[in-house]
């Protein structure tokens, strides 16, 4: 079996299994769509994955989330914002930060702070 398939399978299985482990406590399934969010975040933090690869994966995930009718996880859209900032695409960055704020008003103060300080795009 090629490692790629195993890897892909493992990524899908991991969050699902963790949620299963919780199933007795959380009741009817997960609250959010997780998709590739945490594996991509890990790749981002370790530097193993570049912004283009992450964007492709996470944006495809947004469509999947719509299809199953669940909101994407907290931080998902904001992480896309940071990826576009890396690509010097300020417009897309703001779009995603704003989308995080709309979906999760708890983030408002922080996102506003970022938007003020990110008037100049990060390097």
């Amino acid at each position, binding site marked *: 079996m090629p*490692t790629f398939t195993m890897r892909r*399978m493992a990524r899908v*299985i991991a969050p699902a299994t*963790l949620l*299963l482990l919780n199933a*007795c406590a959380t009741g009817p399934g997960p609250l959010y769509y997780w998709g590739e969010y945490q594996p991509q975040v*890990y790749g981002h933090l370790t530097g193993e994955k570049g912004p283009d690869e992450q964007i492709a994966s996470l944006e495809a995930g947004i469509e999947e989330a719509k299809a199953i009718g669940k909101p994407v996880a907290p*931080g998902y859209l904001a992480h896309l914002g940071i990826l576009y900032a890396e690509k010097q695409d300020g417009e897309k960055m703001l779009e995603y930060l704003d989308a995080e704020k709309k979906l999760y008003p*708890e983030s408002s103060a*922080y996102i506003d702070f970022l938007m003020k300080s990110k008037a100049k795009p990060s390097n």
Partner: protein
Amino acid sequence: MPLVAAALLSSGCATQQPYDYTAYKESRPSSILVLPPLNMSPDVLATNSVLSHVTLPLAESGYYVFPVTLVNETFKQNGLVNPAEMHDVTLQKLRDIFGADAALYITVRQYGTTYAIISSESRVTAEARLIDLRTEQTLWSGTATASSAEGRSSSGGLVGLLVSALVHQIVESTTNRAHPIAGITSNRLLAAGRPNGILYGPRSPNYMTDGNTRP
């Protein structure tokens, strides 16, 4: 009480002193800022590995979790490069910047794989403290561990089987064998509905239903 039985099964502990949730219940935070974990293990991967796993158990427990990569970046752009420096930032400052109700301070005690002739073991142990950023009170603290050897010792019934399946699926496919184990540790540490664990947050349908005040 199947829920309690299941919870006990998954924790593997027979009796524990019930946690005092008084401060937690007074605070009822809805958003949690997770700081990059402090790493006391020799493996440099520990901080990022655990940080990448913790959003899921906390969010599924009903909390808004601030975007971990963005938070990390914010600290770095303010000249704080390692978790120890980040953990030293005053609570007031965190509150001002992030507008979070509570902050979670994680310390990774063990992280890594011990290779032995017969079989190797990956183990991750972490502890966490949840601090209210408004009152500066400690709301909760806990610790959890997970090991790749668990599945082989056939303990824990169904949960044990699931853990075993998860670990063996992923161990095949990763160069960092402790990383999937860190996912299990994070879940044990930070999923609500476990004995002496965190309470459900406002985004969960189970909000306000848990937390023993007195035995």
